[in-house]
């Protein structure tokens, strides 16, 4: 059953000059179509990867899927429900929000530097009303930290006391704290070193298995994609040019753009 469905997802940005300037210089409006009628479906419990270079629209799609940005047209539904539906009550909106969370690219900007780790993890729990009582919340926070390979005592520390890889783990723990069903991973390891990347990717895989999570994985790195994703969508300047299961994409790429990406990826192999 398709759990996450994107239908004709489109997003445009108005980059025009202010109207006064346009009126005086008679220039036309400039509209950027960042995402152009993209369609994809993600099965429950699987990982779908969106691959593309900068300007391909992959981050814009991620923001729309998670609800940070409204689509200009088209829709995103999760389990049949659309977060952008204006008729939803505040309660229904929160319930929908809880089901889908995000892990961001920058380990440095994704955690509030003035908040303790315990508070960062506790905030979603309180916002969604998942657990009552400070004691029970502390227990849950400790549990989350351990699930991502950190220790319960880390709850009292500040983000700057941790390395990049550890901060990404905290980010993942925060995403998990709302007990979501879908997690969007927006370039979660692009800013990390190779050995740390391996740890974080392994963690994500293990969590998916343990909790039956569905991932939308955004990246520009084909090597990462090959180890993480069941199915891959290739984006070029807002258009989904090719979509295949992982094995097929690597062995039988159909589009020139895909072939170009595959050949340009730096590989460690010697003839």
């Amino acid at each position: 059953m398709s759990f996450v469905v994107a239908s004709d997802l489109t997003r445009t940005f108005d980059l025009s000059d202010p109207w006064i300037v346009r009126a005086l210089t008679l220039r036309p409006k400039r509209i950027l179509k960042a995402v152009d009628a993209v369609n994809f479906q993600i099965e429950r419990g699987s990982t779908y990867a969106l691959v593309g270079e900068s300007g391909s629209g992959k981050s814009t799609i991620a923001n729309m899927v998670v609800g940070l940005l409204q689509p200009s047209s088209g829709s995103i539904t999760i389990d049949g429900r659309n977060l952008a539906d204006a008729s939803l009550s505040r309660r229904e909106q929160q319930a929908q929000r809880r089901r889908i969370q995000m892990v961001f690219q920058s380990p440095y900007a994704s955690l509030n530097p003035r908040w303790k780790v315990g508070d960062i993890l506790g905030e979603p729990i309180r916002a969604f009303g998942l657990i009552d009582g400070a004691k029970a919340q502390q227990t849950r926070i400790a549990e989350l930290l351990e699930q991502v390979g950190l220790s319960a005592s880390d709850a009292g520390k500040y983000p700057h006391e941790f390395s990049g890889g550890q901060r990404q783990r905290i980010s993942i723990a925060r995403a998990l704290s709302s007990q979501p069903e879908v997690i969007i991973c927006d370039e979660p390891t692009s800013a990390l070193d190779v050995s740390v990347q391996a740890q974080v990717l392994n963690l994500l895989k293990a969590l998916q298995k343990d909790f039956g999570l569905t991932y939308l994985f955004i990246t520009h790195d084909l090597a990462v994609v090959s180890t993480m994703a069941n199915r891959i969508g290739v984006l070029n300047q807002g258009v989904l040019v090719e979509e295949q299961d992982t094995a097929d994409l690597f062995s039988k790429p159909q589009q020139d753009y895909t072939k170009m990406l595959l050949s340009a990826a730096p590989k460690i192999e010697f003839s």
Partner: protein
Amino acid sequence: MMRRFFQSDFFYAFTRSPLAMVSLFVVALMVLSAVFANFIAPTNPFDPASLNLMNGFTPPMEANMFTGEKFLLGTDDQGRDLFSAILYGLRVSLFVGMMAVGLAMVLGVLLGLIAGYVGGWLDTLIMRLADIQMTFPSILIAMLIFGVARGLLPPELREEMAITVLILSIGLSEWVNFARTVRGSTMVEKEKEYVAAARLIGLNRWQIMLRHILPNVLGPVLVIATITLALAIIAEATLSFLGVGAPRTEPSLGTLIRIGQDFLFSGEWWILLFPALTLLALALSVNLFGDWLRDTLNPRLR
């Protein structure tokens, strides 16, 4: 938590800078003197019953020719002990200065947060207001607000409310610096992913602004507050000197300077000199400390 502070790089830098330590010491000394003025001052110069007109115009440390009393810094025309007057005057100056800065800070930070986070026409409105206000010297703005407020008040209240109106006028003239800086920092923080994460759990604007963004934009605010304090103290002194500030019955250092000026050329130099020196020392120390703070905190902010 205090232990963390004393171990921090900031405190380390502080102990390495003689300038910082001396200026903070002077400020602390003055604040304490002002707070405990009741206990330190030999007399209460504003209790009419304790005054003896015959004590007037006594030079410092000299025995008065009529009463034989000695005063550390001399007396003014009405026989008030200048040392006590300065201590009480410090109290008024510091009180007005700090309250005005407090007002400017709260107003400026709030407006800056809103302008930076909400953006759009609200941002434009607030920033244009700031621009308009910046075209006038803050003293003029303070005088304007002072004049309007006084005009609105019934005559009986004017004297009583003088201090409050003074605080209001100086505070309202200094918010722009805070607002502009906070707006800039807010616009930077707004783009960071932790704000996006907060939106993902359904927090509303105010919750995000106050709980998440505010703690991260307060850094430069402390520096601006210190420097604005020096400005506020001088502004208050100026207004009082011009006669539109603290009244004679509750004088600040500025008022004392105005009184002293009348007598400078008739030879009673001490009535002007000592309040002026005190004001100088206070404003200078606050300024120097603020400058040091700004330089020290700056690279760490990045």
